[in-house]
């Protein structure tokens, strides 16, 4: 108690300015409370990780096997000039990394967020605690980021083991995949909390995720798309994630292009984080 008073007195005296010090205090409080919300999800996850780890490990293995080796054997036999001369496994694996991050993000940010309001009411219960809606959002987003990072890390290791990565830069494909996931998780969670009917998610998966997955240069280069569709593909966030992961995994990175990709994804994530704090407040503060 005494120490605390003395410390705050010292801050007031020696800090750069009282305004900056109080801003720092607000930030520290935000982080501490968000982390508390995150730990709630961690407690839940500690009980259920066993079942999800199987699909996190085996899912990517199946995909690599089927797409990289099975389909890859057909593509490689037919000729890979349009892929830039690399084998199909090397072409498709980084794209599966990025789109897998998107999948995890959308799955973790849709039904679980909606369910926390409507089904198991975790958010409603948390309102009896000092946590504010924005803390709940940031805490949940931390948990989503952790899940995305876990799955992406497992997949990156598999890429390395199976020789799908052609360059050491692939270690940077992991954070890029996490950023790609975050660029989807934050906006989707911000929207999911406002949703009134869970059918909306069926539309999101059908008209959002599915076309993104199929037409963002994941399974084939977008140079094969007709002109207008190609322009549309360039505008999607998934394409930027896929392109950057692929460049890193193949080892020829164009720094300017990479900067554009990262800036685009980061902008989406930041907008999502900002919007989420607002939509959560509007939905959860009565």
């Amino acid at each position, binding site marked *: 108690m005494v120490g605390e008073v003395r410390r705050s007195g010292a801050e007031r005296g020696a800090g750069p300015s009282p305004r900056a010090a109080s801003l720092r205090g607000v930030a520290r409080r935000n982080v501490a409370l968000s982390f508390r919300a995150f730990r709630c999800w961690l407690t839940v996850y500690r009980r259920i990780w066993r079942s999800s780890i199987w699909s996190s490990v085996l899912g990517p293995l199946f995909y690599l*096997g089927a*797409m990289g080796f099975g389909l890859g054997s057909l593509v490689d036999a037919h000729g890979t000039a349009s892929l830039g001369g690399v084998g199909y496994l090397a072409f498709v694996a980084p794209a599966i990394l990025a789109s897998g991050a998107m999948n995890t993000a959308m799955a973790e940010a849709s039904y679980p967020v909606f369910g926390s309001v409507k089904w198991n009411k975790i958010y409603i219960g948390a309102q009896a605690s000092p946590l504010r809606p924005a803390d709940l959002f940031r805490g949940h987003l931390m948990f989503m980021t952790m899940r995305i990072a876990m799955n992406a890390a497992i997949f990156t290791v598999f890429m390395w083991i199976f020789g799908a990565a052609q360059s050491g830069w692939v270690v940077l494909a992991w954070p890029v995949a996490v950023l790609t996931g975050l660029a989807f998780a934050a906006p989707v969670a911000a929207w999911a909390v406002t949703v009134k009917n869970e059918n909306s998610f069926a539309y999101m998966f059908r008209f959002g995720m599915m076309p993104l997955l199929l037409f963002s240069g994941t399974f084939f280069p977008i140079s094969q798309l007709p002109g207008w569709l190609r322009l549309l593909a360039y505008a999607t966030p998934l394409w930027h994630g896929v392109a950057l992961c692929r460049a890193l995994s193949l080892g020829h990175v164009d720094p300017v292009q990479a900067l554009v990709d990262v800036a685009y994804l980061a902008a989406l994530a930041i907008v999502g984080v900002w919007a989420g704090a607002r939509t959560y407040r509007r939905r959860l503060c009565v």
Partner: protein
Amino acid sequence: MSSASLRMLPPTGRLRRLARGSDPSRPPREGMRSAGPFRGDPGSLRLIERHARVYRHAWLVFVSGVFEPLFYLLSVGLGLGVLVGKVPGPGGQPIPYRDFVAPGLLAVSSMNGAMYDSTFNIFFRLKYAKLYDAVLATPMRPAQVALGEIGWALLRGTIYAIAFTLVMLALGLVHSPWAVLNVPVAVLIGFAFAAIGMTGTTYMRSWQDFDYVILASMPLFLFSATFYPLSVYPRPLQVVIEWTPLYQGVVLLRDLTLGVVGPELIWRAAYLGVLGLAGLYASGRRIGKLLLV
């Protein structure tokens, strides 16, 4: 306990007999009389009617289902088809990749639709909506619930299969009049997987167990000769895959669509039918066990 609430709790022996549908003291209700569990059965029709009423406001979800095959087939036509070129078809002759993969996608979509309907939705009704607790307080019996749920899944599957086949026809991916059988075969695939999925659902403890559903359906989806011919695999693996249920469906639909039809297709269809009937029987028993003790 008051006598009124005691009267609301029938003795377990009677409830058991009710479950088997052999309660002589109970007058048969209009429309429910002499309805065996697997015959055209008004009880299960009522469950289907209930779902139709619930989904009346979500009809757009059904309509939007047409877009899924469209997206898939477009991406194959524009992208993967160009990369892969030609693959050996069912008769051994080389065929374009899009002709090869389209029937496989129909089989996958029938399986996935039926699986999700019979696992996620049924688990929700079983554990959260408590729908079957309410239903079994009526003269309906567990087998009728199982039949009704699977019937509903098949009804949805039929709509999707028709839409998918029409999209294939519009894109010029149908090469034989045998393809009219695509819809019943797709429904048969749906039947087999809905029945198995529903049986599995009765063993589920929480949502986390659904990771195992995905873990089971994903390798079927990826490895059942859907995206590339069986000849890609080494021989021992081929033998294993030839025995999986989705493979039967994929071969059935591919052969029908391309017009390479032989008598062995009957055995493949019978395989799926037996699987479905076994699942139907097992799920009816399981629902009775879960809710009527």
